[in-house]
């Protein structure tokens, strides 16, 4: 009843001419009780808003063109990456302390070419089809890796055996309801252990491409966006999985791209079509990881010393704060 609602009652479909109708200034669309009329009014309001916005854009563009060279530079849109809360552990490329740390941490032998990576890939108990196939594909992607299944063997007991047989890294793929959903990456001679949550795993046949399978060549590694100290150490962990000298003949590249604390893994074959253009073709499995915890020693859930754990209540409060 009341407040001068627009369309005349009984006039369901046709919109009245807007000049005939006056609204009191405190009127809002949400006050109309009738859903159909309310919807109609809302749609009209929305169209009006859009028109206004378009008009504003056009005006601004005309002003820009009119000013020509003197126009103020275009405003940079705010993105989450722009607005990211500054993390004090961000690594400065020239930082000596960081360089010194990295020269003396557990990956130093790898980066000094003293060790060749040898990876053991295994799963949790009783792996189901997808996980098994994923393990196999992962083994083809990472050179010098072996897949072993364990039936009920405790991790703590196989670690000394691995060290004895000269493995440098251990990957455990955890499975839940027939899909892999977790990854534990442990650098073996008492190196750090990282526990990830793995999601959107795509096997090779599910990726839409028409390439062949990865060859035996050592791929290159790309690590993007690992900026903080924590990110740096994780990045080095990933780099330590692959042998140091990529074979460029193979033209394969494995990418670990960190974006907003999600690490995307892709495996491509590239070809340089020209100086400025490169074509890439995705082979190989893909998955995304999210770091859950980083432990100082090898895998030990009870007595391990945790360097970093994801604490949901503290760390997930801000949308613009990332830790990797």
């Amino acid at each position, binding site marked *: 009843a009341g407040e001068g609602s627009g369309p005349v009652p009984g006039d369901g479909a046709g919109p009245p001419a807007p000049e005939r109708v006056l609204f009191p200034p405190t009127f809002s669309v949400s006050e109309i009780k009738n859903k159909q009329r309310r919807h109609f009014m809302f749609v009209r309001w929305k169209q009006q808003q859009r028109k206004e916005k378009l008009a504003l854009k056009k005006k601004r563009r005309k002003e820009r063109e009119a000013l020509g060279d003197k126009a103020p530079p275009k405003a940079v849109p705010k*993105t*989450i*990456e722009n607005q990211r809360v500054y993390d004090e552990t961000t690594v400065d*490329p020239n930082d000596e302390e960081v360089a010194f740390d*990295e020269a003396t941490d557990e990956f130093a032998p790898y*980066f000094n*070419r003293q060790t060749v990576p040898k990876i053991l890939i295994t799963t949790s*108990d009783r792996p189901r089809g997808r996980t098994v196939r994923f393990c196999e594909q992962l083994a083809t992607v990472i050179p010098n890796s072996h897949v072993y299944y364990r039936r009920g063997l*405790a991790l*703590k007991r196989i670690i000394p055996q691995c060290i004895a047989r000269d493995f440098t890294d251990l990957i455990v793929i955890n499975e839940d309801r027939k899909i892999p959903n977790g990854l534990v990456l442990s650098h073996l001679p008492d190196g750090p252990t990282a526990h990830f*949550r793995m*999601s*959107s795993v795509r096997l090779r046949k599910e990726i839409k*491409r*028409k*390439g*062949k399978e990865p060859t035996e060549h050592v791929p*290159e*590694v*790309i*690590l*993007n966006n*690992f900026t903080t100290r924590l990110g*740096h150490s994780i*990045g*080095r962990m990933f*780099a330590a999985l692959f042998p*140091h*000298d*990529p074979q*460029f*003949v193979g*033209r394969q*590249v494995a*990418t670990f*791209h960190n*974006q*907003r*604390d*999600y690490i*995307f893994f*892709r495996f*491509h*074959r*590239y*070809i*340089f*079509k*020209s*100086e*400025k253009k*490169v*074509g*890439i*073709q995705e082979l190989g499995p893909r998955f*995304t990881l*999210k770091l859950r915890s980083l432990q100082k020693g090898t895998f030990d859930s009870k007595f391990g010393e945790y360097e970093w754990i994801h604490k*949901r209540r503290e760390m997930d409060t801000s949308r613009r704060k990332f830790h990797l």
Partner: protein
Amino acid sequence: TKTQNFCRNEYNLTGLCNRSSCPLANSQYATVREEKGRCYLYMKSIERAAFPRRLWERVLLSKNYERALEEIDENLIYWPRFLRHKCKQRFTKITQYLIRMRRLTLRRRRKLVPLRRKIERRENRREEKALIAAQLDNAIEKELLERLKQDTYGDIYNFPIHAFDKALQQQEAESDSDSEAEREEEEEEEDVDKREFVEAEDSELSDFEDMDKLDTSSEEEQEEEEEVEKKASHSKSKGKTPLKGPARRKRPYIEIEYEEETEPKTK
């Protein structure tokens, strides 16, 4: 099969609701119960029926299985066979499950961590958004081109125009073919030096990059350029079939012509 009810009374011996095994219905009754890993024999007799607090008499049984069975026999001497038998059976069952409990705690247990639906959904959504923001293909292509410019690949890819020479080209407005020929020569000479001294600037792992370049430079000194070119052309021809992949991905209906490597690329 005959269905039977369960008895809810905690002192029940068999667990079923019968006249013979109801602790309320029988004035003389016995049970075995365990508390914190120790087994007790509870007995109820008619003399104490008026005193509910003292109704159930409790006897601690020995930890030794045979000793405990003897104790049950001693305490329930002259009691009905049924009760004695059932008590011993129950005691046996209890000890078995206690043993199993102790064995299980020694082994490693699989800990089930429940997923929280809201959190799962939130993380999935954020992952999708992060994926879109990442623009992976572009990032990878950019990185590869960067590496090409930084000369990590050495002389495998023989593109006549190089990064800092491009600047030259922009400044000079000379004919392309001449400048390219000059640049190829310059490049061949300078490459050997450039590789050893130039640092990769914006890669995350500067160590890694340096190591790579040192290796490729050592390769270069061993091989001749002609061989490298042959190898490059061979790899190019090897690369023809995978090239169809990304090309086809982008423009599926256009035929792609492959240029011979010896022709100068005009860009």
